[in-house]
């Protein structure tokens, strides 16, 4: 039985890998649809092996539920998952993201007027961005209560430093030639900020905004481990783990993954529209 399971799994792997290797080494590999198809096939192969091994080895659902069980759970519990999504992603992560980003912009633009402050903010901000800020979650939960406000605060602090550092670095990214040109046009501080330095900073700013999307979701979910109302993705993950309902945990993780890549994709899409002139965006 065990042998059958392992041989079957290897067979699935071999078939999937054979098709992918053929596709990747064929003349078709430069085509767009092949570049999408290959990773999708790889994902499907992994899922099939997972399903096959769990069913054949009769792995307890408490350890690892099969993908089909997760899909069923995802479909059946959709209303509940949607409410969790709203609580954690929309209310917690998004609010915090917007507040943190706005605060970072404001501080960056104020600090930018003084080269002295800029030199101080870059290293300190970079240092703060590497710290385990998630750990402030219990403090914010104590201050602001267990509802989404405390999650938004944690997210705000987490996204603040990467966006700040990138914005400050971006605002410095103009050459003296460009700044001189603005001065010969008679442009004041605000005109050259809006017409030259902010546009020039956009690639940096979007870099920070993209890094911050993942941080926002992590902050909102992990902060719920420290206390939350009886709704939310982090709450559902920790209670479902307690009830050994792992298919529910996986369903939440699928939602979190989709939300994370959509959020990131949205930022990348806006970036492509705003910084269409940048070399990295040219086709």
């Amino acid at each position, binding site marked *: 039985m065990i042998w059958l399971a392992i041989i079957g799994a290897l067979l699935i792997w071999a078939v999937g*890998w054979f098709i*992918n290797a053929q*596709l*990747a*080494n064929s003349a078709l*590999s430069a085509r767009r649809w*092949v*570049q999408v198809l*290959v*990773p999708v*096939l*790889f*994902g499907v192969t992994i899922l099939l092996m997972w399903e096959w091994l769990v069913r054949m080895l009769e792995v*307890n659902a408490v*350890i*690892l539920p099969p993908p089909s069980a997760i899909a069923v759970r995802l479909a059946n519990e959709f209303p509940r998952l949607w409410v969790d999504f709203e609580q954690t992603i929309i209310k917690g992560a998004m609010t915090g993201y917007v507040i943190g980003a706005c605060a970072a912009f404001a501080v960056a633009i104020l600090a930018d007027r003084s080269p*002295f*402050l*800029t*030199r*101080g*903010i*870059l*290293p*300190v901000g970079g*240092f703060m961005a*590497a*710290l*385990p800020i*998630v*750990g*402030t979650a*219990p*403090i914010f*939960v*104590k201050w602001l209560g267990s509802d989404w406000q405390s999650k938004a605060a944690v997210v705000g602090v987490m996204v603040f430093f990467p966006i700040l550092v990138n914005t400050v670095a971006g605002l410095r990214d103009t050459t003296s030639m460009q700044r001189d040109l603005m001065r010969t046009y008679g442009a004041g501080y605000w005109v050259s900020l809006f017409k030259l330095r902010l546009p020039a900073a956009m690639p940096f700013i979007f870099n920070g905004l993209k890094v911050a*999307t*993942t941080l926002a*979701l*992590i902050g909102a*979910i*992990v902060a719920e*481990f*420290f206390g939350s109302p009886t709704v939310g993705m*982090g709450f559902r*993950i*920790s209670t479902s*783990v307690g009830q*050994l309902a*792992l298919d529910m*945990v*996986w369903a*939440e*993780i699928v939602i*979190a*993954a989709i939300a*994370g*890549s959509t*959020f*990131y994709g949205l930022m990348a899409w806006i970036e492509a529209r705003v910084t269409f002139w940048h070399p990295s965006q040219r086709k």
Partner: protein
Amino acid sequence: MKSVLPVLTVVGVIMLVWVVSVVPMNMHLTADQAQRDGLAVTPDTPAARQNVSSVALALKNTHLIGATYGLERPRLPSPHQVGAELWDTVFDKKITSRRSLVYHGWVTLSATLLGFAIGTGLGILLAVGIVYNKAMDMSVMPWAIASQTIPILALAPMIIVMLGAIGVQGILPKAIISAYLSFFPVVVGMVKGLRSPDGMQLDLLRTYNASGAQGFWKLRLPASVPYLFASLKIGISASLVGAIVAELPTGARAGFGARMLVGDQYGQPIVTWAALFAAAITAAALVGLFSLLERLTLRRMGMVQA
């Protein structure tokens, strides 16, 4: 060296904001405590004080402002309280004591380092595979990139329970979470690094009749070192966060995460803050260590000017 003064100024401003906010954050608690101790407080009932903002309360009771810095269970501890707690639990306790932060730090740090070593090792191997095998590149690389946009930290509680159910306990579950958090940044960074030699350099090696292995050891691997260090610095701080978060949902008894939870549950904010700062200092030390290694290695390899 010219950025020392600006850095000190920024740190000073942050400390100043902290010190000033201690007063309004703790004012209501201080007023309640002062009344219990028989001091005069205006307004004189807790209910009436609830309707007064903390700043107004501080202005009306200027004689109590000093006391906001000395509460035993403050909402916002003052810097000197956190510093004293840190000093006490790091230097004055025996390192085998359960109250010693060095002990808790080692519990978290050992899991972090073990996981980081596993994650980095596997990440480099996978990166080599991706660079040399086109099928692997096309199948795995999109997933490795996509994995950076999803909150994989949410998997932590489940991995702990999953491994617990099959009998794996102790340091290993935490290390595994640390490992997968450092794994993906290393893969993405190393692939970029191993691919960084341009066509000219690869052609030169071909004219030397270098074998594939020689091309790897003499060109690709050295060229990837700057990228590796950039990834390592991201990976090590992600590993530490992973180990700390891994301690939270399981009710771990030891480690920085456990210390934060204890402070939170037993109403000892100073303990939470001290653990938080200790974790931050550890993270900073690790990143600093890798920056130093980076500088030394790159200088020795002649990649940066001394």
